[in-house]
């Protein structure tokens, strides 16, 4: 990769970052998604471009100041990759700490805060590389290894994709997984919110018996398919309200004698 192509790639990515930044700032969900997609595409280019420009150009003034020019020029690809990855992780995490210290929000409404970190990293790396100038560093030929490495990445990616499709949720229930949920919570002073959810293996008819104080309410019969839920707000004003205490029992025929699930609100 030549210095010129690195610069071109970086400028394109920086432009994309800017557009994404503006698009994300717009509140509409559609434009935010477009911005997110754009960002997904351009950020790796920006980061890789920035770091590539560091790697492929001659050591610059900072390295000279550090008196490590020869050392930097001799860095092999293994050292470069390890240091760039670790440096990338470190600078993003430290950027978050700095943003937090100076009071910049890091929540969902602050994608731009994170872009400031990534953008600043890219710009710094690029500026650093630009100060170096000169011709790209000559690298020894590496034969077909880069192609084999790229193929290895593709192979592992394909294996992961196949693996994920294989590990989708099992379909076997083994008869031991079924259950039903009964829940209740007060909904103001005079009514309760009931919630029944069925995870039974077949369509199930339930009876819901509600006792307000000592007075029974009309029995509700509900039929739920597996996964289906039933919600009801039960008005207890004519039964003395919630303060009298409320007991709810869920029956699942054929066993109509003992309740399957129970909840209560004690007075």
């Amino acid at each position, binding site marked *: 990769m030549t210095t010129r192509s690195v610069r071109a790639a970086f400028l394109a990515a920086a432009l994309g970052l800017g557009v994404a930044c503006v698009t994300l700032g717009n509140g509409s969900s559609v434009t935010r998604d477009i911005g997110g*997609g754009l960002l*997904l595409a351009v950020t790796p280019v920006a980061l890789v471009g920035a770091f590539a420009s560091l790697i492929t150009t001659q050591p610059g003034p900072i390295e000279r100041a550090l*008196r*490590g020019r*020869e*050392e*930097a020029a*001799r*860095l*092999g*690809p293994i050292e470069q*990759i*390890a*240091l760039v*990855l*670790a*440096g990338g*992780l*470190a600078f*993003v*995490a430290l950027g*978050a*700490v700095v943003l*937090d210290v100076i009071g910049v929000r890091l*929540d*969902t409404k602050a994608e731009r*805060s*994170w872009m400031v970190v*990534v953008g600043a990293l890219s710009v710094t790396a690029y500026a650093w590389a630009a100060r170096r100038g000169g011709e790209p560093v000559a690298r020894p030929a590496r*034969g*077909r290894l880069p192609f084999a*490495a790229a*193929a*290895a990445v593709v*192979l*592992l990616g394909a*294996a*992961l994709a196949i*693996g994920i499709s*294989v*590990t989708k*949720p*099992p*379909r*076997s*229930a*083994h008869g*031991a*997984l079924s*259950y039903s*949920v*009964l*829940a209740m*919570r007060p909904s103001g002073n005079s009514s309760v919110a009931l919630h029944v959810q069925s*995870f039974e293996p077949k369509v199930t008819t339930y009876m819901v018996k509600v006792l307000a104080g000592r007075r029974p309410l009309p029995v509700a019969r509900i039929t739920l398919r*597996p*996964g289906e839920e039933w919600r009801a707000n039960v008005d207890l004003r004519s039964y003395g309200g919630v303060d009298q205490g409320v007991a709810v029992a869920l029956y699942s025929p054929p066993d109509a004698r003992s309740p399957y699930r129970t*909840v209560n*609100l*004690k007075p």
Partner: protein
Amino acid sequence: MSVSAYGTGSTPALSSASDVADTEPTAPRSSGVALLVVAACAATGVVVAAISFRLARESTSLNGARGLLWLSLALMFAPALARMLSRGPSREERAAILVVAGVAMYLLKVLYDPTRLGFPDELIHATNASRLIADGHLYAANSISPVSANFPGLSSLAAGIAHLFHLGVVPSALLVIGVARVVLTLALFLLFEQVARDARLAGVATLLFCANPNYLYWSSQFSYESLSFPLFVLALFCVLRRWDAPEANRALWTFAALPPIALITITHHVTGLALAAVLWVLVAVALRRGQRGAAPVALALVTTIVVGLWLAFVAPDTFGYLGDIFRRALSSVTDAFGAGGSTHKPFEGKGGDAAPLDDKLLAALSAVLAVVASAAGVRATRKSTWGSPMAPLLMLAAVASIVVYGARVFPDAWETANRASEYVYLGVALMAAVVAVRLADRRSWLLRALPLLAALLAVAGSSVSGWPASAQLPRPFGVDAFGTHVFPQGETAARWAAANEAVDTRYVSNDSTGRLLMVHGAVHVISSRHPGVPELLKESTLPAWQQDFLRRERVDRVVLDDRRYVNDNVIGYYFARPGQTITRYPPGVRRKFERLAGVSKVYDSGDTVVYDIRQWRTAKGAR
């Protein structure tokens, strides 16, 4: 070895070719074909692992799944080691093969549960990352692991990726740890190469590090040590490279070590302290050798100061947390030798599931192999010409592995021993590699095959000893059954709580359901890790101290689950395996709450119930 074996023609560590042991008479070849073969085998191993995991979730017998898991590990590991033991590959090819094997083994963890973060520590750190994404608080409180909230390195990276790429917490977390795995692999290779001055030996040692009991699952989880340990190794490499560099070039390596040190400081307490300790040891070694210029005084000072300041001002409760862990470990060992002491049954999880006999034998064999290889390696390298200051430290670490393996037997020392495994295995891997390379150079094909066979056994066995037997293979979490998607009862209860309860509701719960509650947004969860809570959730009586506890902690909801295995924070999130015997707590545990005036049962899914005790507690408190 020729200098070209190092790829770029020279390394600063090797100021002249004469510094390098002449072990490779021919120029290394890198056609890429071998790398492709290794990658194809590893990719096949990934697919085989996925099939194994699917079988484990669906079958009543685990034998087939277990066999496939061993096969997948063999496919990922054996071809890579075979190539690594040969003299052929170039330095770059070795690194590429190592990365392929390391990433493939990480994908095995990803496929364990690709849709969620389900390992115990993952739920804690996923909570921190989710809170950071939702609220923007870098140090959001974490009631189950308060210390973790003070080290935002990991959560900030996951949150940053989630924000930038509009990803969820799960893929972001998997990406961060995936990158950390690549860094670890390369850093190990560079570190071992810097110590041994031999790319072949370094490659073998890096692969043998996979036999560390934590490598497969523990170090692959979304947890702060999974990020900090690779940086620890990389920082050590920078320090060693600085040591060997000409005087004029040392500043560059000092500079290169700073980002890893900074990230370690904000990511993990023990790693920061360990790095500071190792750096001071290296300073002492340098001074003793009269190599004042090589002594990493500045880096040791910087590390000590930044780690110390962080612990003092940002994470002051860390000392109490670590002190408690070490105190328990020590008393566990001393108690075991006294009257009434107990030892941990090896290969048995808290859920009580014992490992099959063949697994136990494999794990024991793995430990024996590690100890024997360490001893033989130390013996072989005792009088070596390795000039690296890390060499004696790594030999010491290899010897310390005997203590670490032994400490795993004691219940409360297990955690300390487990966490120390990675550090001591740096030494074990290098010493074992010395033995493996020597055997591989013999004429007898049997002796040449021995390292491969032993390494395979070591990797398989250590994966058994590093993770509870009951969780070696995944359990069903979400099940597509009856035309719908069914979650375990704990997950359903946590989702119900998230939808219906106030965020500041204070819960008491078993550890696994507690972590699920937190991941779904509950802020205050007192789990069974807290003293007093296990008795509250298991005993049929409610003595005064338990009532005082509930009042003092201002508990609003008590979440009970009858099933004992659910209290295990490794397997408690999942459905029981088909055919698994489920033991239960006595019915009196529920009755002790039900008979209290003012305690309401607000949620009932059969095994899981939620009691609202606020009315009882406030009445009690008013008295």
